[in-house]
Protein backbone atom coordinates (compact mmCIF):
# COMPACT_ATOMS: atom_id res chain seq x y z
CA UNK A 1 0.00 0.00 0.00
CA UNK A 2 1.29 3.43 -0.96
CA UNK A 3 1.14 6.27 1.50
CA UNK A 4 0.58 8.79 -1.22
CA UNK A 5 -1.90 8.80 -4.05
CA UNK A 6 -1.40 10.33 -7.41
CA UNK A 7 -2.04 13.97 -7.79
CA UNK A 8 -5.47 14.51 -9.22
CA UNK A 9 -5.72 17.02 -12.05
CA UNK A 10 -7.57 20.28 -11.40
CA UNK A 11 -10.35 21.15 -12.15
CA UNK A 12 -12.15 18.03 -11.14
CA UNK A 13 -13.69 15.64 -13.58
CA UNK A 14 -15.79 12.63 -12.63
CA UNK A 15 -12.85 10.29 -12.76
CA UNK A 16 -10.74 12.47 -10.49
CA UNK A 17 -13.60 12.58 -8.03
CA UNK A 18 -13.95 8.85 -8.11
CA UNK A 19 -10.25 8.56 -7.34
CA UNK A 20 -10.74 10.36 -4.04
CA UNK A 21 -11.69 7.13 -2.31
CA UNK A 22 -10.74 3.47 -2.42
CA UNK A 23 -13.77 1.92 -0.75
CA UNK A 24 -12.45 -1.63 -0.86
CA UNK A 25 -9.26 -0.63 0.91
CA UNK A 26 -10.97 1.76 3.31
CA UNK A 27 -8.85 4.65 2.12
CA UNK A 28 -9.81 8.28 1.61
CA UNK A 29 -7.66 10.93 -0.05
CA UNK A 30 -6.61 13.81 2.19
CA UNK A 31 -7.43 16.20 -0.67
CA UNK A 32 -11.09 15.87 0.21
CA UNK A 33 -10.52 18.14 3.20
CA UNK A 34 -8.57 20.98 1.64
CA UNK A 35 -9.21 21.26 -2.09
CA UNK A 36 -11.16 24.47 -2.92
CA UNK A 37 -12.60 22.89 -6.06
CA UNK A 38 -14.02 19.97 -4.10
CA UNK A 39 -15.49 22.41 -1.65
CA UNK A 40 -17.15 24.35 -4.47
CA UNK A 41 -18.76 21.13 -5.64
CA UNK A 42 -19.91 20.29 -2.12
CA UNK A 43 -21.74 23.61 -1.98
CA UNK A 44 -23.49 22.94 -5.25
CA UNK A 45 -24.00 19.19 -5.16
CA UNK A 46 -24.36 18.24 -1.52
CA UNK A 47 -25.87 21.28 0.16
CA UNK A 48 -28.53 22.02 -2.45
CA UNK A 49 -29.48 18.36 -2.92
CA UNK A 50 -29.95 16.84 0.51
CA UNK A 51 -32.36 17.30 3.40
CA UNK A 52 -30.76 19.81 5.73
CA UNK A 53 -31.75 20.35 9.33
CA UNK A 54 -32.78 23.94 10.05
CA UNK A 55 -34.53 24.10 13.43
CA UNK A 56 -36.70 22.28 15.92
CA UNK A 57 -40.43 22.95 16.18
CA UNK A 58 -40.06 23.96 19.83
CA UNK A 59 -37.96 26.94 18.73
CA UNK A 60 -40.86 28.46 16.79
CA UNK A 61 -43.93 27.62 18.83
CA UNK A 62 -46.13 30.63 18.14
CA UNK A 63 -47.40 31.95 14.82
CA UNK A 64 -44.93 34.56 13.67
CA UNK A 65 -42.02 32.99 15.52
CA UNK A 66 -38.93 32.63 13.41
CA UNK A 67 -35.24 31.79 13.67
CA UNK A 68 -32.43 32.62 11.26
CA UNK A 69 -30.43 29.59 10.21
CA UNK A 70 -28.27 28.32 7.37
CA UNK A 71 -28.56 25.70 4.68
CA UNK A 72 -24.90 25.32 3.86
CA UNK A 73 -23.75 28.84 3.03
CA UNK A 74 -27.26 30.06 2.27
CA UNK A 75 -28.96 32.04 5.00
CA UNK A 76 -32.59 31.03 5.58
CA UNK A 77 -35.53 32.05 7.75
CA UNK A 78 -37.50 29.30 9.48
CA UNK A 79 -40.93 30.75 10.12
CA UNK A 80 -44.18 29.58 11.65
CA UNK A 81 -47.08 31.07 9.70
CA UNK A 82 -50.43 32.30 10.99
CA UNK A 83 -51.72 29.02 9.55
CA UNK A 84 -49.50 27.09 11.92
CA UNK A 85 -47.34 25.77 9.12
CA UNK A 86 -43.58 25.82 9.09
CA UNK A 87 -41.84 27.40 6.13
CA UNK A 88 -38.23 27.92 5.20
CA UNK A 89 -37.24 30.92 3.05
CA UNK A 90 -34.04 31.99 1.43
CA UNK A 91 -33.08 35.08 3.46
CA UNK A 92 -32.61 37.17 0.34
CA UNK A 93 -34.89 39.82 -1.11
CA UNK A 94 -36.27 38.81 -4.47
CA UNK A 95 -35.78 42.34 -5.77
CA UNK A 96 -32.02 42.78 -5.65
CA UNK A 97 -30.72 40.30 -3.20
CA UNK A 98 -30.39 42.17 0.09
CA UNK A 99 -30.74 40.11 3.25
CA UNK A 100 -34.14 40.79 4.75
CA UNK A 101 -33.61 39.44 8.24
CA UNK A 102 -30.50 39.98 10.33
CA UNK A 103 -31.64 38.91 13.76
CA UNK A 104 -31.12 35.51 15.38
CA UNK A 105 -34.75 35.01 16.31
CA UNK A 106 -38.00 36.89 16.87
CA UNK A 107 -41.70 37.10 16.13
CA UNK A 108 -43.03 39.05 13.22
CA UNK A 109 -45.55 39.08 10.43
CA UNK A 110 -43.45 41.36 8.26
CA UNK A 111 -40.00 41.25 6.74
CA UNK A 112 -39.17 44.63 5.22
CA UNK A 113 -36.19 44.87 2.90
CA UNK A 114 -34.06 47.85 3.84
CA UNK A 115 -33.08 48.80 0.31
CA UNK A 116 -36.29 49.56 -1.60
CA UNK A 117 -38.91 48.45 0.87
CA UNK A 118 -40.22 45.26 -0.68
CA UNK A 119 -42.20 43.67 2.12
CA UNK A 120 -42.95 40.02 2.72
CA UNK A 121 -45.16 38.43 5.33
CA UNK A 122 -44.34 35.46 7.52
CA UNK A 123 -45.83 33.21 4.83
CA UNK A 124 -43.17 34.46 2.43
CA UNK A 125 -45.65 36.37 0.27
CA UNK A 126 -44.59 39.62 -1.32
CA UNK A 127 -47.14 42.02 0.11
CA UNK A 128 -45.86 45.47 -0.71
CA UNK A 129 -43.70 47.00 -3.44
CA UNK A 130 -43.13 50.77 -3.42
CA UNK A 131 -43.95 52.33 -6.80
CA UNK A 132 -45.61 49.09 -7.82
CA UNK A 133 -47.69 50.85 -10.49
CA UNK A 134 -44.58 51.94 -12.31
CA UNK A 135 -43.82 48.30 -13.12
CA UNK A 136 -46.78 48.53 -15.49
CA UNK A 137 -47.66 44.91 -15.15
CA UNK A 138 -44.14 43.58 -15.57
CA UNK A 139 -43.95 42.46 -11.96
CA UNK A 140 -46.14 39.65 -10.67
CA UNK A 141 -46.18 39.79 -6.89
CA UNK A 142 -47.45 36.24 -6.71
CA UNK A 143 -44.36 34.96 -8.43
CA UNK A 144 -41.95 36.98 -6.32
CA UNK A 145 -42.54 35.77 -2.82
CA UNK A 146 -39.50 34.70 -0.85
CA UNK A 147 -37.83 31.70 -2.40
CA UNK A 148 -39.16 28.75 -0.44
CA UNK A 149 -37.51 25.43 0.32
CA UNK A 150 -39.32 22.12 0.59
CA UNK A 151 -39.95 21.38 4.26
CA UNK A 152 -40.51 18.13 6.07
CA UNK A 153 -40.51 17.28 9.75
CA UNK A 154 -39.66 14.21 11.78
CA UNK A 155 -40.23 14.22 15.55
CA UNK A 156 -40.24 18.01 15.51
CA UNK A 157 -36.92 18.15 13.67
CA UNK A 158 -37.48 20.50 10.73
CA UNK A 159 -35.56 19.67 7.56
CA UNK A 160 -35.54 21.57 4.29
CA UNK A 161 -34.13 21.06 0.83
CA UNK A 162 -33.90 23.06 -2.38
CA UNK A 163 -34.15 19.92 -4.48
CA UNK A 164 -37.69 19.41 -5.78
CA UNK A 165 -36.76 16.00 -7.16
CA UNK A 166 -35.33 14.61 -3.95
CA UNK A 167 -37.08 11.71 -2.20
CA UNK A 168 -39.27 12.47 0.83
CA UNK A 169 -37.60 13.09 4.19
CA UNK A 170 -39.01 9.79 5.39
CA UNK A 171 -37.40 7.89 2.53
CA UNK A 172 -34.23 9.95 2.84
CA UNK A 173 -33.86 9.04 6.51
CA UNK A 174 -34.94 5.45 5.94
CA UNK A 175 -33.67 3.16 8.70
CA UNK A 176 -32.23 6.23 10.43
CA UNK A 177 -35.76 6.98 11.64
CA UNK A 178 -35.63 3.91 13.86
CA UNK A 179 -32.50 5.35 15.51
CA UNK A 180 -33.83 8.90 15.73
CA UNK A 181 -36.90 7.48 17.53
CA UNK A 182 -34.58 6.44 20.37
CA UNK A 183 -33.54 10.06 20.89
CA UNK A 184 -36.39 12.25 19.70
CA UNK A 185 -39.39 9.92 19.50
CA UNK A 186 -39.13 8.00 22.74
CA UNK A 187 -41.50 10.13 24.79
CA UNK A 188 -44.24 12.63 24.25
CA UNK A 189 -41.64 14.75 22.61
CA UNK A 190 -38.35 16.50 23.08
CA UNK A 191 -37.71 20.23 23.06
CA UNK A 192 -34.80 22.58 22.74
CA UNK A 193 -33.38 24.30 25.82
CA UNK A 194 -32.31 27.87 25.13
CA UNK A 195 -30.38 29.16 22.15
CA UNK A 196 -27.62 27.21 20.40
CA UNK A 197 -23.97 27.77 21.29
CA UNK A 198 -22.29 28.87 18.06
CA UNK A 199 -18.72 29.25 16.95
CA UNK A 200 -16.56 29.41 13.85
CA UNK A 201 -13.72 26.90 13.79
CA UNK A 202 -10.88 26.51 11.31
CA UNK A 203 -11.86 23.00 10.33
CA UNK A 204 -13.50 21.22 7.43
CA UNK A 205 -17.16 20.45 8.18
CA UNK A 206 -16.88 16.78 7.17
CA UNK A 207 -14.55 16.00 10.08
CA UNK A 208 -17.28 16.77 12.59
CA UNK A 209 -19.92 14.90 10.63
CA UNK A 210 -17.77 11.79 10.11
CA UNK A 211 -16.65 11.77 13.74
CA UNK A 212 -20.26 11.45 14.90
CA UNK A 213 -21.13 9.09 12.07
CA UNK A 214 -18.95 6.43 13.53
CA UNK A 215 -15.72 7.32 15.29
CA UNK A 216 -15.93 5.67 18.68
CA UNK A 217 -12.26 4.80 18.65
CA UNK A 218 -11.13 8.35 19.37
CA UNK A 219 -12.78 8.59 22.80
CA UNK A 220 -10.09 6.67 24.61
CA UNK A 221 -7.32 8.98 23.45
CA UNK A 222 -9.02 12.28 22.68
CA UNK A 223 -11.01 12.37 25.90
CA UNK A 224 -8.49 10.43 27.95
CA UNK A 225 -8.22 13.13 30.61
CA UNK A 226 -11.57 11.99 31.96
CA UNK A 227 -10.35 8.49 32.67
CA UNK A 228 -7.05 9.75 34.02
CA UNK A 229 -8.84 12.02 36.48
CA UNK A 230 -11.27 9.24 37.43
CA UNK A 231 -14.33 11.10 36.30
CA UNK A 232 -16.26 8.13 34.91
CA UNK A 233 -18.64 6.44 37.29
CA UNK A 234 -19.99 3.90 34.86
CA UNK A 235 -16.78 1.96 34.89
CA UNK A 236 -16.38 -0.92 32.54
CA UNK A 237 -17.24 -3.91 34.67
CA UNK A 238 -16.94 -7.33 33.16
CA UNK A 239 -14.94 -6.28 30.13
CA UNK A 240 -15.26 -4.01 27.17
CA UNK A 241 -18.56 -2.38 26.31
CA UNK A 242 -20.68 -3.82 23.52
CA UNK A 243 -23.33 -2.56 21.15
CA UNK A 244 -23.83 -1.76 17.51
CA UNK A 245 -22.57 0.41 14.71
CA UNK A 246 -25.53 0.96 12.40
CA UNK A 247 -25.45 1.74 8.70
CA UNK A 248 -28.90 3.11 7.80
CA UNK A 249 -27.80 3.86 4.22
CA UNK A 250 -27.63 7.23 2.43
CA UNK A 251 -24.43 8.15 4.25
CA UNK A 252 -26.05 8.27 7.69
CA UNK A 253 -24.54 6.43 10.63
CA UNK A 254 -25.07 5.71 14.32
CA UNK A 255 -23.35 4.04 17.25
CA UNK A 256 -25.08 2.41 20.21
CA UNK A 257 -23.00 1.46 23.25
CA UNK A 258 -23.86 -0.64 26.29
CA UNK A 259 -21.55 -1.53 29.18
CA UNK A 260 -20.41 -5.11 29.47
CA UNK A 261 -22.58 -5.47 32.58
CA UNK A 262 -25.88 -5.25 30.80
CA UNK A 263 -27.96 -3.29 33.30
CA UNK A 264 -30.92 -1.01 32.82
CA UNK A 265 -29.63 2.41 31.84
CA UNK A 266 -32.08 3.87 29.35
CA UNK A 267 -29.34 6.29 28.26
CA UNK A 268 -29.12 7.62 31.81
CA UNK A 269 -32.58 9.15 31.60
CA UNK A 270 -34.36 9.71 34.92
CA UNK A 271 -36.45 6.81 36.18
CA UNK A 272 -39.53 9.03 36.03
CA UNK A 273 -39.37 8.84 32.23
CA UNK A 274 -38.92 5.09 31.89
CA UNK A 275 -42.62 4.21 31.85
CA UNK A 276 -43.18 6.84 29.16
CA UNK A 277 -40.40 5.33 27.08
CA UNK A 278 -41.84 1.88 27.44
CA UNK A 279 -45.24 3.13 26.31
CA UNK A 280 -43.85 4.96 23.31
CA UNK A 281 -41.18 2.77 21.77
CA UNK A 282 -41.57 -0.61 20.09
CA UNK A 283 -40.53 -3.77 21.86
CA UNK A 284 -37.40 -4.05 19.72
CA UNK A 285 -36.48 -0.46 20.47
CA UNK A 286 -36.98 -0.98 24.21
CA UNK A 287 -34.72 -4.00 24.03
CA UNK A 288 -32.05 -1.83 22.48
CA UNK A 289 -32.39 1.31 24.63
CA UNK A 290 -32.61 -0.44 27.99
CA UNK A 291 -28.89 -1.30 28.33
CA UNK A 292 -27.75 1.74 26.34
CA UNK A 293 -25.44 4.40 27.80
CA UNK A 294 -24.32 6.12 24.60
CA UNK A 295 -26.25 6.89 21.43
CA UNK A 296 -24.43 8.90 18.74
CA UNK A 297 -24.93 9.46 15.07
CA UNK A 298 -25.00 11.73 12.09
CA UNK A 299 -27.80 12.42 9.64
CA UNK A 300 -26.17 13.02 6.28
CA UNK A 301 -24.70 15.47 5.58
CA UNK A 302 -24.08 17.56 8.70
CA UNK A 303 -26.49 16.93 11.58
CA UNK A 304 -25.00 15.07 14.51
CA UNK A 305 -26.61 13.97 17.75
CA UNK A 306 -25.46 12.40 20.95
CA UNK A 307 -26.85 11.19 24.19
CA UNK A 308 -24.30 10.03 26.68
CA UNK A 309 -24.61 8.85 30.24
CA UNK A 310 -20.89 8.62 30.69
CA UNK A 311 -20.66 11.84 32.68
CA UNK A 312 -21.83 11.37 36.19
CA UNK A 313 -19.77 12.81 39.01
CA UNK A 314 -20.49 15.92 40.94
CA UNK A 315 -17.82 17.82 39.00
CA UNK A 316 -20.04 17.77 35.97
CA UNK A 317 -23.01 19.15 37.87
CA UNK A 318 -24.79 15.89 38.57
CA UNK A 319 -25.84 14.54 41.93
CA UNK A 320 -23.53 12.35 43.95
CA UNK A 321 -23.70 8.74 42.88
CA UNK A 322 -26.30 9.15 40.16
CA UNK A 323 -25.52 8.90 36.47
CA UNK A 324 -26.50 11.98 34.54
CA UNK A 325 -26.84 12.36 30.82
CA UNK A 326 -27.85 14.85 28.17
CA UNK A 327 -29.13 14.84 24.63
CA UNK A 328 -27.51 17.21 22.19
CA UNK A 329 -28.04 17.96 18.54
CA UNK A 330 -25.26 19.65 16.67
CA UNK A 331 -24.63 20.90 13.18
CA UNK A 332 -21.45 21.60 11.19
CA UNK A 333 -22.16 24.34 8.67
CA UNK A 334 -19.62 24.67 5.87
CA UNK A 335 -18.00 28.08 5.37
CA UNK A 336 -15.12 27.03 3.15
CA UNK A 337 -12.71 24.11 2.86
CA UNK A 338 -11.01 25.19 6.06
CA UNK A 339 -13.83 26.79 8.02
CA UNK A 340 -17.16 25.81 9.51
CA UNK A 341 -19.69 27.13 11.96
CA UNK A 342 -20.55 24.74 14.75
CA UNK A 343 -23.96 24.96 16.41
CA UNK A 344 -24.99 22.86 19.35
CA UNK A 345 -28.36 22.55 21.08
CA UNK A 346 -29.42 20.84 24.28
CA UNK A 347 -32.65 18.81 24.18
CA UNK A 348 -34.92 17.62 26.97
CA UNK A 349 -37.84 15.24 26.97
CA UNK A 350 -40.93 17.29 27.76
CA UNK A 351 -41.72 15.56 31.03
CA UNK A 352 -38.21 15.60 32.44
CA UNK A 353 -38.26 16.45 36.18
CA UNK A 354 -36.92 19.92 36.82
CA UNK A 355 -34.07 18.89 39.11
CA UNK A 356 -32.77 16.44 36.52
CA UNK A 357 -33.12 19.13 33.86
CA UNK A 358 -30.73 21.31 35.80
CA UNK A 359 -28.26 18.46 36.34
CA UNK A 360 -28.35 17.65 32.65
CA UNK A 361 -27.95 21.27 31.60
CA UNK A 362 -24.94 21.80 33.90
CA UNK A 363 -23.32 18.62 32.67
CA UNK A 364 -23.84 19.55 29.01
CA UNK A 365 -22.44 23.07 29.53
CA UNK A 366 -19.33 21.69 31.14
CA UNK A 367 -18.46 18.97 28.67
CA UNK A 368 -19.82 20.11 25.30
CA UNK A 369 -19.91 23.26 23.20
CA UNK A 370 -17.02 25.50 22.19
CA UNK A 371 -15.71 25.59 25.77
CA UNK A 372 -16.68 22.04 26.70
CA UNK A 373 -13.97 19.94 28.29
CA UNK A 374 -14.72 17.12 25.86
CA UNK A 375 -15.61 19.04 22.73
CA UNK A 376 -12.47 21.22 22.97
CA UNK A 377 -10.37 18.23 22.15
CA UNK A 378 -12.58 17.05 19.28
CA UNK A 379 -12.25 20.49 17.75
CA UNK A 380 -8.53 20.44 18.26
CA UNK A 381 -8.33 17.19 16.27
CA UNK A 382 -10.37 18.50 13.40
CA UNK A 383 -8.51 21.81 13.39
CA UNK A 384 -5.10 20.16 13.40
CA UNK A 385 -6.12 17.86 10.58
CA UNK A 386 -7.50 20.68 8.45
CA UNK A 387 -4.52 22.92 9.04
CA UNK A 388 -1.98 20.11 8.88
CA UNK A 389 -3.10 18.81 5.51
CA UNK A 390 -2.32 22.07 3.69
CA UNK A 391 1.08 21.13 2.39
CA UNK A 392 1.62 19.52 -1.03
CA UNK A 393 2.83 16.22 0.42
CA UNK A 394 0.22 16.08 3.17
CA UNK A 395 -2.35 16.65 0.44
CA UNK A 396 -1.35 13.39 -1.23
CA UNK A 397 -1.92 11.17 1.79
CA UNK A 398 -4.33 8.22 1.93
CA UNK A 399 -6.22 8.20 5.22
CA UNK A 400 -7.22 4.98 6.98
CA UNK A 401 -10.80 3.79 7.41
CA UNK A 402 -10.34 0.05 7.29
CA UNK A 403 -10.87 -0.99 10.91
CA UNK A 404 -13.49 -3.75 10.88
CA UNK A 405 -14.01 -3.51 7.16
CA UNK A 406 -14.31 -7.30 6.86
CA UNK A 407 -16.95 -7.66 9.57
CA UNK A 408 -20.18 -9.44 8.74
CA UNK A 409 -23.46 -7.72 9.65
CA UNK A 410 -24.89 -8.60 13.03
CA UNK A 411 -27.75 -11.07 13.03
CA UNK A 412 -29.07 -10.03 16.42
CA UNK A 413 -29.75 -6.43 15.38
CA UNK A 414 -33.52 -6.07 15.69
CA UNK A 415 -33.88 -2.83 13.73
CA UNK A 416 -33.77 -1.84 10.08
CA UNK A 417 -30.52 -1.09 8.27
CA UNK A 418 -27.31 -3.00 8.59
CA UNK A 419 -25.61 -3.25 11.96
CA UNK A 420 -22.25 -4.47 13.11
CA UNK A 421 -21.56 -5.53 16.65
CA UNK A 422 -18.41 -5.91 18.68
CA UNK A 423 -16.69 -5.13 21.95
CA UNK A 424 -16.45 -2.21 21.61
CA UNK A 425 -18.71 -1.60 18.62
CA UNK A 426 -16.28 0.75 16.96
CA UNK A 427 -15.57 0.26 13.27
CA UNK A 428 -14.52 2.51 10.46
CA UNK A 429 -17.01 1.41 7.84
CA UNK A 430 -19.65 4.00 8.72
CA UNK A 431 -17.16 6.77 8.11
CA UNK A 432 -15.99 5.07 4.96
CA UNK A 433 -19.61 4.99 3.77
CA UNK A 434 -20.06 8.65 4.73
CA UNK A 435 -17.16 9.70 2.48
CA UNK A 436 -18.36 7.32 -0.20
CA UNK A 437 -21.75 9.01 -0.16
CA UNK A 438 -20.11 12.44 -0.36
CA UNK A 439 -18.16 11.39 -3.44
CA UNK A 440 -21.25 9.83 -5.01
CA UNK A 441 -23.08 13.14 -4.72
CA UNK A 442 -20.08 15.13 -5.90
CA UNK A 443 -20.05 13.11 -9.11
CA UNK A 444 -23.67 13.89 -9.97
CA UNK A 445 -23.67 16.80 -12.41
Amino acid at each position, binding site marked *: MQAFGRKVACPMDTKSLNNLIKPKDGLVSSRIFTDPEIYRLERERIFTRTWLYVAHESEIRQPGDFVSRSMGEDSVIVSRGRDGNTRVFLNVCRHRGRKICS*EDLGNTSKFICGYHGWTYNELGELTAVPFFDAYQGRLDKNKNGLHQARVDIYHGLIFATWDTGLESLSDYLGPMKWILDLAFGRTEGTEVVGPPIRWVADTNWKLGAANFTGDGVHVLTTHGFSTQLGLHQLKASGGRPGGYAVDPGNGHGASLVSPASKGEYYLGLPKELWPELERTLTKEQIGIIKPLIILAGNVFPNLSFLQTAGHSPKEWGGPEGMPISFLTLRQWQPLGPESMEGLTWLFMDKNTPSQWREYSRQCYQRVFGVAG*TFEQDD*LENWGQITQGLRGPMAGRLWLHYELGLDLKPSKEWPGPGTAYSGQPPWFDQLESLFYGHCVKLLMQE
Partner: protein
Amino acid sequence: METSDLIFPSDERYSEVLYFLYREAELLDNRCFTEWLDLLAEDIHYRMPVPITRGRNLEYSDEMDIFSDNLASLKVRVDKLRTDFAWADTPPSRTRHMISNLRLKVTDKPDELQSISSVLVYSNRFSQPDADLFSAERFDLLRRVNGQWLLAQRTVHLDQSVVGARHITVFF
Protein backbone atom coordinates in the same frame (compact mmCIF):
# COMPACT_ATOMS: atom_id res chain seq x y z
CA MET B 1 -23.72 53.02 36.65
CA GLU B 2 -25.56 54.70 39.48
CA THR B 3 -23.21 57.35 40.76
CA SER B 4 -24.24 56.92 44.36
CA ASP B 5 -23.02 53.32 44.59
CA LEU B 6 -19.66 53.99 43.05
CA ILE B 7 -16.36 53.55 44.77
CA PHE B 8 -13.93 56.04 43.34
CA PRO B 9 -10.39 55.27 42.18
CA SER B 10 -9.07 57.29 45.08
CA ASP B 11 -10.69 54.83 47.49
CA GLU B 12 -8.27 52.21 48.85
CA ARG B 13 -10.70 49.44 47.90
CA TYR B 14 -10.42 50.48 44.26
CA SER B 15 -6.66 49.97 44.43
CA GLU B 16 -7.16 46.61 46.08
CA VAL B 17 -9.62 45.39 43.50
CA LEU B 18 -7.52 46.71 40.63
CA TYR B 19 -4.56 44.79 41.95
CA PHE B 20 -6.74 41.76 42.55
CA LEU B 21 -7.75 41.78 38.89
CA TYR B 22 -4.19 42.42 37.71
CA ARG B 23 -2.89 39.60 39.86
CA GLU B 24 -5.61 37.32 38.56
CA ALA B 25 -4.69 38.22 34.96
CA GLU B 26 -1.03 37.63 35.72
CA LEU B 27 -1.70 34.18 37.16
CA LEU B 28 -3.82 33.21 34.18
CA ASP B 29 -1.34 34.53 31.62
CA ASN B 30 1.55 32.86 33.42
CA ARG B 31 -0.46 29.63 33.48
CA CYS B 32 -0.47 29.45 37.29
CA PHE B 33 -3.95 27.99 37.28
CA THR B 34 -3.76 26.28 40.65
CA GLU B 35 -2.85 29.58 42.26
CA TRP B 36 -5.72 31.15 40.34
CA LEU B 37 -8.16 28.72 41.96
CA ASP B 38 -7.05 30.10 45.32
CA LEU B 39 -8.57 33.44 44.36
CA LEU B 40 -12.02 31.91 44.03
CA ALA B 41 -14.66 31.65 46.75
CA GLU B 42 -16.07 28.24 47.62
CA ASP B 43 -19.41 29.17 46.08
CA ILE B 44 -17.98 30.66 42.87
CA HIS B 45 -20.33 30.75 39.93
CA TYR B 46 -18.38 31.45 36.80
CA ARG B 47 -20.38 31.68 33.58
CA MET B 48 -20.62 33.07 30.08
CA PRO B 49 -24.24 33.22 28.91
CA VAL B 50 -24.97 32.72 25.22
CA PRO B 51 -25.32 36.06 23.38
CA ILE B 52 -28.49 36.48 21.30
CA THR B 53 -29.62 39.11 18.83
CA ARG B 54 -33.38 39.38 19.15
CA GLY B 55 -34.62 42.11 16.87
CA ARG B 56 -32.55 45.17 17.71
CA ASN B 57 -31.80 43.92 21.23
CA LEU B 58 -28.47 42.47 22.19
CA GLU B 59 -29.34 39.93 24.86
CA TYR B 60 -27.59 37.31 26.93
CA SER B 61 -29.50 34.10 27.49
CA ASP B 62 -30.53 33.00 30.96
CA GLU B 63 -31.24 29.50 29.66
CA MET B 64 -27.91 28.55 28.17
CA ASP B 65 -24.28 29.31 28.95
CA ILE B 66 -21.17 28.83 26.87
CA PHE B 67 -19.65 27.75 30.14
CA SER B 68 -21.12 27.57 33.61
CA ASP B 69 -18.76 26.39 36.27
CA ASN B 70 -18.52 25.94 39.99
CA LEU B 71 -15.36 25.35 41.98
CA ALA B 72 -15.43 21.60 41.39
CA SER B 73 -15.75 21.88 37.62
CA LEU B 74 -13.14 24.63 37.45
CA LYS B 75 -10.78 22.35 39.33
CA VAL B 76 -11.39 19.68 36.71
CA ARG B 77 -10.55 22.17 33.97
CA VAL B 78 -7.31 23.02 35.74
CA ASP B 79 -6.47 19.42 36.59
CA LYS B 80 -7.06 18.42 32.98
CA LEU B 81 -4.15 20.60 31.95
CA ARG B 82 -1.78 18.39 33.91
CA THR B 83 -3.01 15.13 32.43
CA ASP B 84 -1.46 13.53 29.35
CA PHE B 85 -4.55 14.46 27.38
CA ALA B 86 -4.73 18.27 27.43
CA TRP B 87 -4.89 18.27 23.65
CA ALA B 88 -6.74 21.54 23.15
CA ASP B 89 -3.99 23.17 25.17
CA THR B 90 -1.13 21.47 23.28
CA PRO B 91 0.59 23.67 22.41
CA PRO B 92 -0.61 26.09 25.07
CA SER B 93 -1.83 29.52 24.08
CA ARG B 94 0.10 32.66 24.83
CA THR B 95 -2.62 34.82 26.37
CA ARG B 96 -2.80 38.37 27.64
CA HIS B 97 -5.72 39.69 29.69
CA MET B 98 -5.86 43.45 29.28
CA ILE B 99 -8.10 44.90 31.95
CA SER B 100 -9.66 48.32 31.58
CA ASN B 101 -12.64 50.46 32.59
CA LEU B 102 -12.95 49.11 36.13
CA ARG B 103 -16.10 50.37 37.80
CA LEU B 104 -16.50 49.43 41.43
CA LYS B 105 -19.67 49.54 43.47
CA VAL B 106 -20.81 48.83 46.97
CA THR B 107 -23.42 46.14 47.57
CA ASP B 108 -25.79 45.49 50.42
CA LYS B 109 -23.10 43.56 52.23
CA PRO B 110 -20.17 45.52 53.59
CA ASP B 111 -17.64 42.82 52.67
CA GLU B 112 -18.88 42.38 49.12
CA LEU B 113 -18.27 44.64 46.15
CA GLN B 114 -19.52 44.56 42.63
CA SER B 115 -16.89 45.09 39.98
CA ILE B 116 -17.54 45.70 36.31
CA SER B 117 -14.55 45.64 34.01
CA SER B 118 -13.71 45.34 30.35
CA VAL B 119 -11.27 42.74 29.26
CA LEU B 120 -9.54 42.19 25.95
CA VAL B 121 -8.07 38.71 25.74
CA TYR B 122 -5.33 38.20 23.18
CA SER B 123 -4.65 34.53 22.52
CA ASN B 124 -2.02 33.07 20.21
CA ARG B 125 -0.91 29.49 19.50
CA PHE B 126 1.36 27.60 17.12
CA SER B 127 2.99 29.87 14.56
CA GLN B 128 -0.08 32.03 14.02
CA PRO B 129 0.76 35.43 12.63
CA ASP B 130 -2.66 36.57 13.85
CA ALA B 131 -4.33 35.99 17.19
CA ASP B 132 -7.79 35.28 18.51
CA LEU B 133 -9.15 38.39 20.21
CA PHE B 134 -11.97 38.14 22.71
CA SER B 135 -13.65 41.27 23.98
CA ALA B 136 -15.96 41.08 26.98
CA GLU B 137 -17.49 42.86 29.91
CA ARG B 138 -17.16 41.08 33.23
CA PHE B 139 -19.61 41.45 36.10
CA ASP B 140 -17.87 40.25 39.23
CA LEU B 141 -18.85 39.85 42.83
CA LEU B 142 -15.86 40.18 45.12
CA ARG B 143 -15.91 39.13 48.74
CA ARG B 144 -13.41 39.96 51.44
CA VAL B 145 -12.56 36.84 53.42
CA ASN B 146 -9.90 37.03 56.15
CA GLY B 147 -8.63 40.28 54.73
CA GLN B 148 -8.30 38.85 51.23
CA TRP B 149 -10.50 39.50 48.25
CA LEU B 150 -11.99 36.44 46.60
CA LEU B 151 -14.01 36.16 43.41
CA ALA B 152 -17.48 34.92 44.34
CA GLN B 153 -19.24 35.33 41.04
CA ARG B 154 -18.34 36.23 37.47
CA THR B 155 -20.65 36.67 34.52
CA VAL B 156 -18.86 37.29 31.25
CA HIS B 157 -20.68 39.05 28.44
CA LEU B 158 -18.81 38.20 25.27
CA ASP B 159 -19.05 40.88 22.59
CA GLN B 160 -19.93 38.55 19.74
CA SER B 161 -22.80 36.16 19.13
CA VAL B 162 -20.66 33.59 17.34
CA VAL B 163 -17.41 32.75 19.09
CA GLY B 164 -14.58 33.36 16.64
CA ALA B 165 -12.27 30.55 17.69
CA ARG B 166 -11.68 26.84 17.25
CA HIS B 167 -12.49 26.45 20.95
CA ILE B 168 -12.31 28.32 24.22
CA THR B 169 -9.66 27.09 26.62
CA VAL B 170 -8.76 30.43 28.12
CA PHE B 171 -10.30 31.53 31.43
CA PHE B 172 -11.93 34.95 31.30
